[in-house]
């Protein structure tokens, strides 16, 4: 998945035109004609601008102090300030939302990974009656649309008085995080050679011992990927959080951000500033882990 190691493997550029006129200097495989290279750079630059612009625009708008500045973006240059940021940090529930978001996301992550770890190992190594059915259940649970569980969950949680509580939201998120982590971890355990298990058994370890002493230490990257992914998913979830969290100090960011725009008032400048404050740490975190994340996601998908 790394983008740098491929240099040597001369991955074939599709765009290099083998049909180009016989070159004087022999072009090596994977090298391109200057025109092709220019075209590649052109397309990639345009694509990068499209990818970058909405985010950059949000940052730019967040610097405009008035709530209608987004309609007159030209005027922001002259009166740019950080007043929105200081207002958001001092006079809104920003830190409450931060706390709720972290509690809910971290809770989901920890529970999800802890519960899913042994199962991922079991379905990676063992065949037992009901194996296929179990895998099918894991797969189907992941693709539940939010609409399936929302109504019954709402009813059940109100019976248990868990609406508007962190625990309720964590439980709801676990219903998708647990099967997802189990899949992801199965994909990772599949990449650990079976010879290690066999060696463990020869030395007299039970399957639990093999798992705990040999496999688990080797599987740390896989566990990390499952954790990252559960965290990011729980952090960005909108539907359940918007419905189940009622008091504004318990909102997660996904809900809190919506409160800036209501029917009566649209404080878009504050909203933009909050959005930027949320986006910066999350994106930084994402960029730190993205290489592992991508490998993990596709490892679950391509092997096994």
């Amino acid at each position: 998945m790394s983008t740098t190691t491929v240099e040597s493997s001369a991955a074939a550029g599709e765009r290099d035109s083998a049909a180009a006129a016989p070159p004087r200097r022999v072009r090596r495989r994977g090298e391109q004609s200057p025109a092709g290279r220019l075209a590649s750079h052109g397309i990639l630059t345009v694509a990068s601008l499209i990818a970058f612009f909405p985010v950059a625009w949000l940052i730019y708008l967040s610097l405009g102090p008035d709530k209608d500045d987004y309609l007159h973006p030209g005027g922001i240059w002259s009166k740019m300030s950080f007043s929105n940021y200081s207002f958001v940090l001092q006079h809104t529930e920003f830190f409450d939302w931060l706390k709720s978001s972290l509690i809910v996301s971290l809770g989901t992550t920890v529970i999800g990974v802890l519960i899913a770890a042994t199962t991922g190992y079991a379905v990676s190594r063992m065949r037992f009656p009901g194996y296929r059915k179990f895998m099918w259940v894991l797969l189907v649970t992941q693709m539940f649309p939010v609409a399936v569980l929302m109504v019954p969950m709402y009813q059940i949680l109100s019976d248990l008085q868990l609406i508007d509580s962190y625990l309720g939201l964590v439980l709801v998120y676990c219903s998708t995080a647990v099967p997802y982590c189990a899949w992801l971890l199965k994909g990772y355990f599949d990449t650990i050679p079976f010879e290690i298990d066999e060696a463990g058994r020869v030395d007299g370890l039970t399957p639990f011992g093999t798992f705990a002493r040999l496999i688990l230490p080797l599987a740390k990257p896989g566990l990390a990927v499952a954790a990252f992914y559960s965290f990011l998913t729980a952090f960005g979830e909108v539907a359940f959080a918007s419905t189940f969290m009622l008091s504004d100090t318990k909102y997660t960011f996904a809900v809190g951000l919506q409160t800036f725009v209501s029917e009566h008032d649209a404080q878009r400048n504050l909203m933009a500033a909050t959005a930027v404050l949320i986006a910066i740490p999350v994106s930084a975190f994402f960029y730190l882990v993205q290489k592992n994340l991508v490998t993990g996601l596709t490892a679950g998908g391509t092997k096994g």
Partner: protein
Amino acid sequence: MTVAIDRATGKRHGDRAPRPGLGQRLKQSYQKHWYAYAMIAPVAIVLGVLVLYPLVYGLYLTLTDANSLNTARTIGVNHIDATYKFIGLDNYKDILFGPTSYDRFWSHFIWTIVWTALCVALHYTIGLGLALLLNQKLRGRTFYRLILILPWAVPTFVTVFGWRFMLADGGIINIALDALHLPQPDWLESTFWQRFAAIMVNTWCGVPFMMVSLLGGLQSIDASLYEAAEMDGASAWQRFRYVTLPGLRSVSSTVVLLGIIWTFNQFAVIFLLFGNTAPDAQILVTWAYYLGFGQQPRDFAQSAAYGILLLAILIVFTSFYRRWLNRNEQQLAI
């Protein structure tokens, strides 16, 4: 040995000797597999409590006329008991065939199909194109890649608001269109442009995942295959058609399935882009949410019925997809 490591074959082996009695078999099976069952027990229990029970309860609710006026609720200190009653399959009949069922269900159904097909097609083609471009020796490749995954890195609920500012009446997109003397559609008001905007935003959000996965697939294709193809005089297009595409098949079948499921279930983009203002641009998921939580009185029974129908559609689709892949002798891993 108790635990058979036979992942390679995917078959249980050795335990199909002359069939002993049922009790005997259960006992043997238990002795042989209790490790496995003990290890999957936590997930099985969690799924039973958090998924199966609500699912069955939801299924029961769809057979009633429950809404927010007749379910059990507590107002202050008064507890009001539930008064909804069992009405059989009437909800499903009403949704699928009742009067105005076209407006309520089928129009959303068709739009959901169109939305899923268009979005996934766009995700895949743009993602593949960018992956091919990034899979060359090119200066600044890592830099491009980092910029291009930005839409994935920033949480969707943040970027959708960014798009809302841009698409608003006097937002930057319409300012730019005005400067170019092009018509300025009211993106967030008229149905067609709402749908257009939704697809555009979702495409923007979804391309990076496809791009990165396909790039991983491209890099795992053996370079010697390209050499061999070139030796045999294959043109660039032929190399793409007969080496790259087959090499990507396993990654593609997985990411396309994931893409379809995610897009079909996509809640955040449409919900946050339009809120309750766009009844015609709602896909089934957000429409079910609207029925259950976006209106007064909340129609729990119908919303749950939509949920069950959605799940049925997804399950049917996935099993056909798997069967189709199996017929083409491919393994779908996820």
